[in-house]
Each structure stands twice: as C-alpha cells, then as structure tokens.
C-alpha cells in the first residue's frame, strides 16, 4: 500500500478501503498539521483542522477527480481553507501567547535566545495578513514552488509573488534587529 501513489489510494478510499486511508493519513498527517500550525500558531487547533480535513476526505473521496490536479495541491487547499475559516472565528488564545517547543540544546543561554527569536518570528508571521501568511507558509516553510502554491491559493503566479514580496518586506522591517544579530554572529558572510 505504501508504494501506491496518492491518486491510487484515493480511488481505493472512495471504495471504502480503510487500509488505503490509513496509508494516506500516515503519509500526509505531519504536513497537514505543520501547515495549519504555521497559519494558526497553535498545535491544538492545527490538529483539529487536520482531523477535520482527513475526515472530510474519507467521507467525500468519491467526489475527488484526478483530472483536477495533484492530490497534494488539492489537499493543501483543503487544509489552508479550513485553517483560514478557523482564523476568522473568534479565538480564545492570542497567537503569541502559545509557548514555543522546548529546545534540547545544552547551552541554556543560547536556548533562551533561540526561543526568544522563534517567539518573535512567530509573532511577526502572525501579524501578516492571512493571504501573505499563507503564501509564505506554502513557499518558505513547505517548500512549494510558486506555480503549485498559486494553484493551492487559487490565484495567479504574479499575485502570489506579489504577496510573497510584501510579506518578506514586512518581515524584514519587523525582524531587522534579529537579522542584524545573526549577521553579527557570523552566520552571514
């Protein structure tokens, strides 16, 4: 089952094959949770989104048509749209109140510094308008090409590039001190 393409698994899932569904969940769960986490800033909510996305996939697999594009593109779209829907709901916890994951570096000061940097990055990304944040998440964090990311978002490649540039410009301005720190630390030639 692991050797089968996503599209073949989807065809089996449409027939109610739970083994195929399990294979697809194993293959794409981390990606779905990670993407939703970048957009929502919260693991609990991200896992809810991923769970809903997979449940919908299970229920409506027969409606999916391979002619409509790659499975991953379609699935990213489902996760992104579900995350944006959730972002628009009233939220109980502000995005930057969520603690960062613990880093197991031996140097306590360095760990603290990195945690602070990560917290600032998370807050700065959280400040971006949702479309810019989505573009950045798909292209920078998920490594999608511009064409696929534009397809996921349902926009033109030009519009995506514009969103990315605006996002990066805003991040450069808000994260300037951190960028300088990294350069001073000798990370940047």
């Amino acid at each position, binding site marked *: 089952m692991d050797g089968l393409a996503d599209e073949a698994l989807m065809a089996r899932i449409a027939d*109610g094959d739970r083994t195929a569904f399990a294979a697809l969940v194993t293959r794409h769960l981390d990606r779905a*949770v990670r993407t939703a986490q970048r957009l929502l800033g919260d693991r609990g909510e991200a896992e809810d989104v991923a769970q809903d996305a997979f449940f919908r996939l299970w229920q409506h697999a027969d409606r999916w048509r391979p002619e409509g594009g790659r499975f991953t593109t379609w699935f990213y779209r489902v996760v992104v749209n579900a995350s944006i829907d959730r972002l628009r709901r009233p939220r109980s916890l502000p995005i930057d109140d969520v603690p960062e994951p613990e880093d197991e570096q031996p140097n306590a000061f360095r760990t603290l510094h990195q945690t602070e940097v990560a917290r600032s990055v998370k807050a700065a990304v959280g400040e971006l308008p949702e479309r810019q944040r989505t573009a950045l998440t798909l292209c920078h964090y998920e490594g999608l090409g511009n064409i696929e990311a534009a397809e996921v978002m349902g926009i033109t490649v030009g519009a995506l590039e*514009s969103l990315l540039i605006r996002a990066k410009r805003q991040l450069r301005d808000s994260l300037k001190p*951190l*960028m300088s720190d990294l350069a001073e630390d000798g*990370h*940047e030639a």
Partner: protein
Amino acid sequence: MKPEIDLTPAEERQLARVLDTWQTYPTSPGLAQAILAKARPKAPAFTWSWPRMATLAAAACLGLVVGWWMDGMESYATSLEPGFDALYFEGDPIEGDIL
C-alpha cells in the same frame, strides 16, 4: 506586477535564516489513531440487482392486492346496509352511543 522595492539577496538569506528558527511542534502521537477511529466503515451504496428488484416488485404487488381487497371489503360492507355495523362491531351497541 512586482512591487518596486525588493529584498537584496543578502537580506533574503538573512530573513530565511531567521524564519527557520521558528520550529513547529511535532504531531501528537495519538492523532493518526484518532483519525482512523473516526473513519467508520461506510454503508454500502444502494445498487440495483435482480433479487432486490424482484423483492421490491413483490412487496409492491402485495400492497396493491391488500389495498384492492380492503377496498372490496368496504364496498361489500356498504352494500349490506343497514346491517353494516354488524360486520365491524361485535355485541350490541349501547343505545345512544355515537359509533
């Protein structure tokens, strides 16, 4: 159309490094199991087959026959008036009751 001001390649690299410091949490270990548990086996879709069609046709015929028979009985009972009540109610009706 691209905006006029863009990041320099050095700024792009620095920004990428800074952005990469934000690590996401790993997925909860039990999440996949929870999703699989939620995905219950689907009820088989209704499909037409000869035995199923024959059963449905037999049920429909039986319904028609019963309906026709009840209709006939009612007509027959009406034709027996004024002894109509006797067919339906056993015993003597109490005088004054509205039946």
